[in-house]
């Protein structure tokens, strides 16, 4: 990585001048923290007393038997406090904010997980907190909005653009350029201008460090493949970093295939051929955009993967052939989720279920004395409205109708 935050040809910091000094300060604070071994120790301590780190690595015995191939291990980021890996990044940035002496945090959120995590961190650290969330995502992830508000955060509905994650990011930047003095923008994934990709990747690397140690303890060797879903790419980068130095471990990133790669209704920037290089939201990466550089409307059943860009670090690893990219369709995702619930009693988030899809496609063809790891980035509780809807659950619908009537009646 160069001084300017490039990974191969990807990354950089295409930021408005008004934020220049803010980024200088952030880069310095981050560089100092990174130098300071005490900082990382405190971070690990915080994550192990406030969240549940190390999160377990679970051997999925039934799924392994079901597919009859390599042993399937699942890294349980769902057991983090607030229910996803997002907590790692957020608590780390919270510590940095404290170091910088700022008093207010803002964040964008798609699935709502990053918003809940940020609101939680803000409560814990005593920061004021505003969360930007696209109107469409609010509809998909209403429970998370409720919790953010109860945690004391202000949730701002973003109605511009496609009303999803990218627009929430724009809106957060608009807030930041107004209040950079007391405010830190807690970006939720390994995207955005330098130093965000590097910083978020650093905090998330705790996943991979643990997973590497755990798989060796439990399985006795490194895994053959590691699967992670890729929205912005933070959970994927988190776990991949534990295995990047081991070329024999194949790393597989799974993007949102939506209605299918040829449907135009997906969010696959690297898998498939619809992505192209571009510069937006402050960094250079592969975007889903038209020929003139206008960002496209993406689609995924998983709000957290429904994003036009992707981590510049992953774009680089993709270009270099170090990470293979695949896509999982909405339909495949629902089937994998169903199987995982019934076989293992685990409820992966819709985002995470994408990683399960690809692993399920491949694992039967890998020798039984090998292992793979699936990163379960979060739990599916948050997705109840989407999942119940997708499964077309009649008694859930009845329940909601009755509740609605009850509220109308008053």
């Amino acid at each position, binding site marked *: 990585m160069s001084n300017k935050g490039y990974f191969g040809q990807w990354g950089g910091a*295409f930021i408005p001048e008004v934020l220049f000094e803010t980024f200088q300060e952030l880069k310095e604070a981050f560089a100092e923290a990174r130098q300071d071994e005490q900082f990382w120790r405190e971070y690990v301590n915080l994550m192990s007393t406030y969240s549940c780190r190390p999160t377990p690595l679970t051997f999925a015995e039934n799924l392994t038997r079901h597919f009859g191939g390599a042993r399937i291990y699942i890294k349980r980021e769902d057991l983090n406090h607030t229910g996803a890996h997002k907590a790692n990044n957020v608590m780390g940035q919270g510590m940095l904010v404290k170091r910088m002496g700022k008093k207010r945090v803002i964040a964008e959120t798609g699935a709502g997980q990053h918003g809940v995590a940020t609101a939680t961190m803000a409560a814990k650290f005593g920061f004021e907190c505003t969360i930007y969330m696209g109107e469409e995502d609010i509809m998909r992830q209403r429970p998370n909005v409720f919790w953010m508000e109860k945690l004391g955060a202000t949730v701002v509905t973003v109605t511009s653009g496609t009303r999803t994650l990218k627009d929430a990011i724009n809106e957060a930047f608009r807030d930041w350029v107004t209040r950079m003095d007391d405010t830190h923008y807690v970006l939720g994934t390994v995207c955005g201008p330098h130093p965000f990709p590097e910083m978020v990747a650093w905090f998330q690397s705790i996943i991979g460090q643990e997973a590497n140690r755990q798989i060796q303890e439990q399985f006795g060797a490194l895994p053959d493949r590691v699967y992670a879903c890729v929205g912005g790419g933070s959970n994927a980068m988190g776990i991949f970093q534990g295995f990047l130095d081991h070329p024999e471990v194949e790393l597989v990133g799974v993007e949102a295939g939506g209605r299918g790669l040829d449907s135009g209704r997906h969010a696959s920037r690297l898998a498939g051929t619809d992505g192209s290089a571009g510069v937006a939201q402050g960094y250079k990466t592969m975007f889903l955009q038209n020929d003139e550089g206008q960002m496209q409307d993406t689609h995924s059943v998983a709000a957290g993967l429904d994003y036009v860009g992707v981590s510049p670090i992953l774009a680089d690893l993709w270009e270099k052939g170090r990470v293979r990219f695949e896509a999982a369709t909405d339909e495949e995702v629902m089937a994998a989720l169903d199987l995982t619930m019934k076989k293992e009693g685990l409820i992966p988030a819709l985002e995470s279920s994408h990683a399960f899809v690809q692993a399920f496609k491949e694992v039967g063809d890998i020798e039984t004395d090998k292992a793979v790891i699936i990163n379960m980035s979060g739990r599916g509780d948050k997705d109840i409205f989407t999942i119940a809807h997708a499964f077309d659950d009649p008694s859930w619908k009845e329940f909601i109708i009755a509740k609605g009537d009850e509220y109308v009646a008053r």
Partner: protein
Amino acid sequence: MSLAEDIKQIQSKQDKKILLMTHIVLGYPSFEVNRGVVRQMVENGVDLIEMQIPFSEPMADGPVIVKANQDALENGTTVAQCLEFAAEITETYDIPFLFMTYYNILFKYGEEDFFKKAKKINIKGLIVPDMPPEEGETYFSRARKYELAPIMIFAPTSTNARMKNLAGYGDGFIYCVARKGVTGTQTSFDDEFNNYIGRCRQATDLPLAVGFGISAREDVDYLIGKADIAVIGTKTIKLVEKKGVDSVGLFIKGLRR
């Protein structure tokens, strides 16, 4: 003639206390309206016009311009149409026109091709808020090559050293963002602002344009003697939305005595 020379000429020739630069979003609400608005502006004494090529992610803009960008794109506005329209306009009117847009528009068009084209249609400068010098090796060398002024932006958060550094990359004028935040909200002109504009003046010999939140004659008046150009952005867009194209002329006329 370069933008810097243009500006000098305007300043000297017409002996204006301050120049006016206005802003339009191409394709919003339509090129037809753009055409009318530009005419009103020029006929009523506007000195420079920045034409924004709409982008789907206008990160540095406020709600009014964001919506204008979005509506323009939803109307089907393309970069190609914008360039064509700009060519027509620069042919028609004899004031300097600039493009304002985000970097991805240039990047996808091809940076070299974009500069070449802009030069060809007689555009005088480029305002690209997400292009800092650090990212602009090819951008700035091409600006020099094609003699298109890369308008640098100063912000109240820029240090003196940073301003000096930025000025070194710039040409034509410096766009001084009047305050923190995005386009479209009122700026309060106070001591802090004066101090800031003083720092800007110190940092460069280029003319200073002040934008963000300039919407009335008092604002323009206030800038006389402090800056060289007052930039009217969001205000005329709102005006056209509310009162139509023909209201622009009177408004512009009223901005300067």
